[in-house]
Structure formats: C-alpha cells, structure tokens
C-alpha cells in the first residue's frame, strides 16, 4: 500500500498527515511538485493543507496548474483515492475534479477553531459507518466559504455528495453554526464516484485524543482498510 502526501512550496500540514497515517502503521510518501511520474505507483494521494504557492491569486489555483495536478484526473478516473484537506480541497476545486470553489470567509477573517460537522449519508467508503455522526474537528482557513451554483448544489444532493456540513454540538445545521458563509453549511464534498473527498476541516488534527479529538481518524482508517 502506497499513500502519497503532497508537499508544495507553502504546504505545512504534511507532517501531521504522515503522523496520522503512521499511527495505523502506514508510512506515507511525500510527493513534490515535480513528482508527476510517481503518481502511477500510488494507491492514494492526500493533498495536505497549507498555503501552496503563497495563496496569492486564489488559493489552490497555482498548485492546480502543476504537472502533477494536471495528471490527477487520470489518477482519479482509474479509481484511486484522493483526499484534499483544507488547501487540498481548494486545489481539488480549482482543478475541476470537485465542483464549486472556496472563497473568502464571510467574516473576512482567518478562522482557526474547533467546530462540529455532521456526517451525511455518503456515496464514499471513506466515510463508511459514520452516517449522522457529529464530529468535533478543527478548522483553520481564510478561504473556506464554499460556493457552487444552485444547479451544482442540486446535483451534489442527488448523488449524496455533500459529505460534511457545519453544525452545532447537537447536530443542528444553521446559520449560527456556519463558520465561514458556505452554501448550505457545506464543509466537505465527494465526487460522483466517491473516491475523491475534499474537506475544509482537518481530520489529521483530530486523530489523537491528546489533541482533543480523534473523530478524524475514521477517514484515514477507512482509507487504509479499503487499500488492504
């Protein structure tokens, strides 16, 4: 089993992801901008969070145009798993692999805090056995405001692609529990086939009790079990 974790200039979450993987006995491989040819040896790719290429034009857009990301649609089509966390979610949207885009938080402030998300009925095995669970998980972003057109949202709902929604402790999804202005409190989505998951919250930072939560472990656990 070979799981790659991307490290672009400005990525700063790759070590946390590697640590979460290694707690399951899996050593992830760091994948750099110029490693497009290494994709074919991987069974899964995790696009770690951070500020790839400085976030200047729009978050994720420059990373989305690198050779390795241009190869990603093929990798996805072959049925391999791809998880984009935070900046990774932004990159996946900019490549067009996932619909929509992440824009500036409604508050115009960087939001770094614990939130609750509700796990919906999902088309993805990465969220197996989690339906209706409420996770406590941290977010840390300036551009996490998910936007998609009405027709895209309808399409996402139809195929159970809205994987995670911001909610309160009791699982109530409302404006009050929306930390960034995302349409329908969307915190994460999957592609139609379910092998790609993009989410703004950081499951790798909620993978150990000493960090305050291990709700995020489920995603890595499901991935590893699926690849066994």
């Amino acid at each position: 089993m070979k799981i790659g974790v991307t490290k672009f200039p400005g990525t700063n979450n790759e070590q946390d992801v590697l640590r979460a993987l290694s707690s399951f006995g899996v050593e992830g491989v760091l994948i750099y901008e110029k490693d497009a040819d290494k994709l074919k040896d991987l069974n899964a790719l995790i696009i770690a969070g951070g500020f790839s290429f400085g976030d200047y034009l729009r978050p994720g857009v420059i990373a989305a145009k690198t050779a390795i990301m241009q190869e990603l649609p093929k990798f996805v089509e072959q049925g391999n798993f791809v998880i984009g966390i935070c900046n990774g979610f932004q990159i996946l949207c900019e490549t067009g692999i996932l619909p929509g885009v992440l824009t500036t938080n409604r508050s115009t402030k960087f939001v770094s805090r614990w939130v609750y998300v509700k796990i919906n009925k999902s088309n993805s095995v990465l969220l197996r056995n989690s339906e209706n669970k409420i996770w406590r998980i941290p977010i840390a972003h300036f551009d996490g405001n998910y936007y998609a057109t009405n027709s895209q949202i309808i399409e996402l709902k139809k195929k159970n692609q809205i994987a995670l929604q911001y909610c309160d402790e009791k699982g109530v999804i409302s404006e009050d529990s929306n930390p960034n202005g995302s349409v329908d409190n969307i915190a994460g989505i999957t592609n139609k086939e379910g092998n790609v998951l993009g989410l703004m919250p950081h499951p790798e930072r909620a993978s150990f009790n000493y960090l305050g939560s291990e709700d995020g472990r489920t995603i890595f656990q499901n991935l590893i079990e699926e690849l066994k």
Partner: protein
Amino acid sequence: MVQWWFVLEQLYSGKAKDVIILDDEKVKIVFRNSISAFDGVKIDELKGKGEANCKISRILFEVLHHYGVETHYLKQESSNELICKKVEIIPVESVCRNITAGSFCRRYGVEKGISFEKPIVELFYKNDELHDPLVTEEVAIRLGWINEKEKIIIKAVTLAVNYILREVFKKIGLTLVDFKLEFGRTTDGKLILADEISADTMRLWEMSSGEIKDKDRYRKDLGNVVDHYNDIALRLEQIKELPKIELKTKVRVTIDLKESVLDPAGDITIRSLLRLGYKQVSKVNIGKSVVISFTSAPGSKLWDVTETISNEILANPLIETYSIDFSFE
C-alpha cells in the same frame, strides 16, 4: 473560359487598387497607377506608381511580420500584385500622428509641424460621400462598426506599428509624420492589419531637409512623385539589418466577482463608508486587477493568449468575470 459577369463579381475596384478574390482564403491586390486627391477632384495616372507602392507595402508588411504584427499579407505575386488573406474590411480606419499635418491642422486650426510627445490615434469612418469623417470610439461601437475588443486591438496595433515604423524609417533618414491603417476580419473573425501601407497612406519627410516624400507631393503639385516613391522603396530595400526593437504590450485583466457571489471585503468596506457619512453609497464590490507585460506585439493572437490565461488561471469563471485592456507605450 471565364465569363465576364463572373469576373465582375470577383473584382472590387478602389481608387488606386483592385482586389480580386482568388478563393475562400485568398485575394490578389493589384496596385494601379491611378492617383487621386481631394475626394477624387484631382485624378491622374502616374507611370510606375503602382509598382513603387506595391514594393513599399510588401517590405513594410514583411517588416511588421518580423516584429510579430499580424497582417493580411502572404506574398508578392508580381511587381504590382500582392497575395493576401481574404478579410472583410471594417468601415473604420485608424490614423496615427507624430507631427501635426494635413487635415488635423485644418480641423483644429493648429500649425503644421508640431511634434507630439506621445503619438495621437484617431478613428475615421470610411465613407466617400461623407468625406471619411472623424468618428469617436463610442459612436463606432454603438453604430456597430466595431466592437469593444476591436477598438482595443485597433488602438494598440496602431501604436505598435507606429513604434516599429518610426524606428525603421529613422534608420533610412526619414521622419514618419503620420499614417493611416485599415483593418479586416479574417474568415474566423480575427481582426488583422489589411489594405496597404505605402507612400499613399503615410507622410514621410526627409530628416535632413524636411523635403516631402509622400503623396503630399501630388496634392501640392511638387512634381517627381514616382521618383520619390521609388526612392523610399529603394532605401527600404537596402536595409541590411532591422533595428532591435523591444516591444512591450501591457495587458490589464480586470476581475470582478459576479453579482450573485458574496463579497465580504465589499460588504465590510461599505459599512465603513456609511459610518464615515457617505450615505449615498449603495454597494461596494472589490475585484482585482492584473497587469501583464508581454514582449510581443498587440493583436488578435495576444488577445486569445490573454483570454486563455484569464480563463485558466486569473479568473474562476464560476464566481468571477473579467475584462481585458491593452496598452502600448
């Protein structure tokens, strides 16, 4: 055998040139010896004039190609014929002026020979009955003669052509006073430089003496018109190495958030403006502006490149719109 009506249908005769349509892609432009001035009040035939202008046009089109300006020119067919891309000529021509002369002096009551620090570009409506009147950009667009994109391309290309030709003529001791350009749309809708660039369509003065070398010799009855045309052609022909010219086209892409998308920065800013007492403010939208400098000439190709860059990287079409502007300095 070609029937006469067929020939007629394929031939467009102008004041100094004929255009023969060869096929869907190409035309043949025949430079005649006819010369006229003052809207056809003065008309003559000058032996060798067609050939001289054909040669000047050919050389100048080749010079412009060397610097990356897109034109309709393909090749020279004979001493007075050029093969060019078939284009639909637009009814708006541009004039670029470095020094005051001709109609500009009459229109504004200014003296001839005043140098401008920066060249002036004017647009004219091509219409003989109306004597080719000056037209504003707004009118040319609103009357449907050109669109916004074509306006931007015409202006930038005219300035680039001026920048190039001024240097080239300087090398052979001539001052480029002003010139006229015509543009046409190719079959796939791209605007490119067309018609001719010759001693009939520009003013050239001898640098050392100020002697007139162009069609003004005919208008003012100075004589030896063709001799001077031939001299221009000869001097152009003898250029061994074209001057090194660094072109710089500045392209500005302005990106705006679509109305339907939340604009947190705009919302925060309007709150501040209202707090400061600007009660008449109703909405604030904050976009961004990207300026890219290219080392290539402006034109339809550069426009396409800019559109691709904008669609792929600069703007996200889901939430943003963009507009393009060229400037050539």
